[in-house]
C-alpha cells in the first residue's frame, strides 16, 4: 500500500469528499494562501475553484456563524483554524449557537459542519499559538470532538466527520503532520465514537491523546526493555467517548496513566480519570495518574518549554513510580523535538 503523511491524509479526505459531494467546501483564514495550513489545503482551490475553497477576513466569530448558516441551508462546510487559540474567537458561535441548534429544533435539523483546529507544540510558539483546549469543547453537549493520531485514522475520521450530520471539531496536532504510514487510497470512514488499542500490553494502560500517543509509544519501547508491558489506548474520539474500550483495558491491567497534551487542571484527563475511578474502582492496583502541561501559560524559551511540555520521559517516570521501580537512566534516549520529528509509521 502507498504511504501518506498525516497532512496528505487530511488533504485527501477533504479532496475526495469535495469530489464526491459538491455541497462540501473548505474555508478559513489563510486556507488557500501560501502556507496551505501545513499543506492540508494544497491544490484544493485549483481543483475546486474559489467558491469551494476560500480565504476569509480575520473574523472567526462571524465566519463560524457563516458555517452554521451554510450548513443549515444545505451545504457542508469545513472551517479551518491554523491555531486552536484563534478558534476561541468563535466560542460564542460554537457554544451558544452551533452546539444547541439541533436540540432547539427538536432534533429535526442537521448541522453538517466540521471545524478543524491545529493544536500543539511548535517551535517557540509561546502562550497564544500552542494550546489544545480539548475540554473546553468536550464540555459542551451537541458537539462531537475528535483528535486522530495516525494518518490512516486522520483520513477515515475526517471523512466520517464530513459525512456526519452534526457539528464535529477536529483537533490536529501539528507535530503529527509529518507522520507517515500506509493509508488506503480509496475513501473510507473510521466511525466516530470508537477508540483503538494502538499497542497491546498487560501491565499498565496508557490512555494517550493525540500527539501523546507518539510519546507513549517511545515510552513503551523504553519500558519494554525493562520487561514492562504497556497498553496504549487511543480514544480518537473524545466526544462521544468510547468508554468501554478504556474501562476494559484498565480492567485487565489494573493501572492507568492518562497522557494528555493539554493542561491537567480541569482538563480532559480529569474526565478520563473520573471514568476510570468510577468504573474500575475495585480493579485498580494504583491510583490513576495524569500527565499534561505544567499549570502555567506556555513559555517561549526552549529550556522552559521543555519543562512545560510532557513527553515520553514523563510517561516513563510516571510508570516507574506507579510500579515502585528505580528510575532508569534515560540520558542516551533520543526524545522528540521540533528538530527530531516523528515521521511514523505507528
Amino acid at each position: 500500500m502507498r504511504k501518506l503523511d498525516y497532512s496528505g491524509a487530511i488533504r485527501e479526505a477533504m479532496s475526495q469528499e469535495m469530489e464526491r459531494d459538491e455541497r462540501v467546501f473548505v474555508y478559513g483564514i489563510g486556507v488557500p494562501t501560501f502556507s496551505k495550513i501545513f499543506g492540508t489545503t494544497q491544490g484544493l482551490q485549483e481543483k475546486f475553484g474559489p467558491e469551494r475553497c476560500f480565504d476569509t477576513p480575520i473574523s472567526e466569530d462571524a465566519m463560524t456563524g457563516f458555517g452554521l448558516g451554510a450548513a443549515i441551508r444545505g451545504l457542508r462546510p469545513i472551517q479551518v483554524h491554523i491555531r486552536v487559540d484563534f478558534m476561541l474567537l468563535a466560542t460564542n458561535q460554537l457554544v451558544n449557537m452551533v452546539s444547541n441548534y439541533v436540540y432547539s429544533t427538536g432534533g429535526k435539523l442537521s448541522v453538517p459542519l466540521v471545524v478543524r483546529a491545529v493544536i500543539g507544540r511548535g517551535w517557540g510558539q509561546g502562550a497564544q499559538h500552542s494550546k489544545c483546549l480539548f475540554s473546553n469543547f468536550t464540555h459542551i453537549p451537541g458537539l462531537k470532538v475528535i483528535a486522530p493520531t495516525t494518518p490512516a485514522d486522520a483520513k477515515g475520521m475526517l471523512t466520517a466527520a464530513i459525512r456526519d450530520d452534526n457539528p464535529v471539531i477536529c483537533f490536529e496536532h501539528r507535530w503529527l503532520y509529518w507522520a507517515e504510514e500506509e493509508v488506503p487510497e480509496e475513501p473510507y470512514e473510521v466511525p466516530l465514537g470508537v477508540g483503538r488499542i494502538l499497542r497491546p500490553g498487560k501491565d499498565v494502560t496508557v490512555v494517550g491523546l493525540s500527539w501523546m500517543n507518539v510519546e507513549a509509544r517511545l515510552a513503551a519501547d523504553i519500558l519494554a526493555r525493562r520487561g514492562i508491558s504497556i497498553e496504549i489506548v487511543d480514544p480518537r474520539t473524545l466526544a462521544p467517548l468510547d468508554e468501554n474500550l478504556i474501562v476494559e483495558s484498565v480492567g485487565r491491567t489494573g493501572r492507568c496513566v492518562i497522557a494528555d497534551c493539554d493542561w491537567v487542571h480541569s482538563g480532559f484527563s480529569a474526565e478520563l480519570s473520573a471514568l476510570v475511578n468510577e468504573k474500575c474502582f475495585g480493579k485498580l492496583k494504583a491510583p490513576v495518574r495524569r500527565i499534561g502541561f505544567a499549570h502555567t501559560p506556555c513559555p517561549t524559551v526552549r529550556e522552559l518549554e521543555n519543562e512545560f511540555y510532557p513527553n515520553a520521559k514523563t510517561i516513563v517516570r510516571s510508570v516507574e513510580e506507579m510500579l515502585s521501580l528505580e528510575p532508569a537512566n534515560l540520558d542516551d534516549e533520543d526524545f522528540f523535538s521540533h528538530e527530531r520529528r516523528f515521521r511514523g509509521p505507528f
Partner: protein
Amino acid sequence: MSLVSEGISKAVSTGLYKSLFLARQAEEHIVKHYPENLMRTPMHMSMGQEFVSVAVCSALEGKADVFASYRSHAAFLAQTHDTDRFFAELYGRVSGPGEGKGGSMHLAAPDRGHFLSSGVVATQIPVAVGAAFANLRLKTGRTAVAFFGDGAMDAGVFWESMNSASLFRLPVMFVCEDNGFAVDTPRAARQAFNSLAEAVRPFGCDVYEDSSGDVESVYQLARHAAETASRERRPAFLNIKCCRYLEHVGTGEDWHWGYRNREITVRDWIARDAVLAQRKRLLDCGVAEREVAAMEEEVITTIQRSIERAIAASVPSPERLFVGVFHAKA
C-alpha cells in the same frame, strides 16, 4: 401617510393588516395569559415593532429565510402565520416546533423559513450571511434576512458580518429594528457614531432608512431592497426606526423605570400605532368596517383555538430530555 401607497394593491394592504393584527393580538393574548404561569419562558415582546418584520416578510412573499433575535414573536408569525406551533412552543408542548426545548427565545420553524431566534445579541447575523451564501450556491431563490436591534450594532460580529457579506457579495438583508435602546441603555451611551446608516454606508452595500413607522412604507422599501440585493449581488442594510411599547423582557409597561419619557413616546409612536393606522387606511380606501371586523374576529378565534390546543397538548415526557442533542438520520 398617503391614503393608498403607490403600487400596493388593496389585497396586499389587507394582508399586511391581517399579519399586523395577528402579531399584535397574539401578544395581547400572551399579556392576558402570562400571569397564569403556564407559559414559563421569558417573553421579549415585539409589541410596537411588529410592522418591521411584517413588512419585510410580506415583501419577500414567503421566500425569506429568517434569522431573528430573541424579540422574534412578530417575525415568527409574519413568516409562518402558524399560531398553533407558536403557542405550543410558548406553552412548552411536544407539538411546538422545538418540543418546548426552544421556547420564546429560540422560536424556529425551519420548514416555514424561520430558521432561528437567538438569545445572545447579534449571534444570528453571521448565520444569515452563511445562509445567503448557501442560497446563492444552491440557487434556491430565497433571501436570507437577519433581524436585529440597534444594540446588535454595538457588537463586533455585526461589523464582521457586514464586512464579510459585502466582500463576498452576498444578497443578504440586514434589517435593524432600531428602537434606540439596549434594554434601557440609550444609543448615545453605547455608540460613538451618530448615524447607523452612515456607519454602514462605506461597506458597499445598499443602505435604506425609514422612520415613518408605516408598514406599507417599509414594505415598499423592503421589496426594492430585496430586488436590488438579488440583482446587484450585494447586501442591503435597512435601518427601520421603531418603538418597543413594553419592557425589555416581560409583558408589562416600564415607564416607572424612567429611562424614556412616556409623553414623548406616546406622541411620537403609540399615538400613530402602525396596526391602528393600517386599519384606518383600509377603511379610508373603501374596505367595509364589517369586513375588517370579520377578519379580526377570525384572527382572534384562530389565536384562541391555538391557545386551547396548546393547553390541551402533552408536555414532553422526561426521556425527551436526551432526545435531539444530535441529529439522527431518519
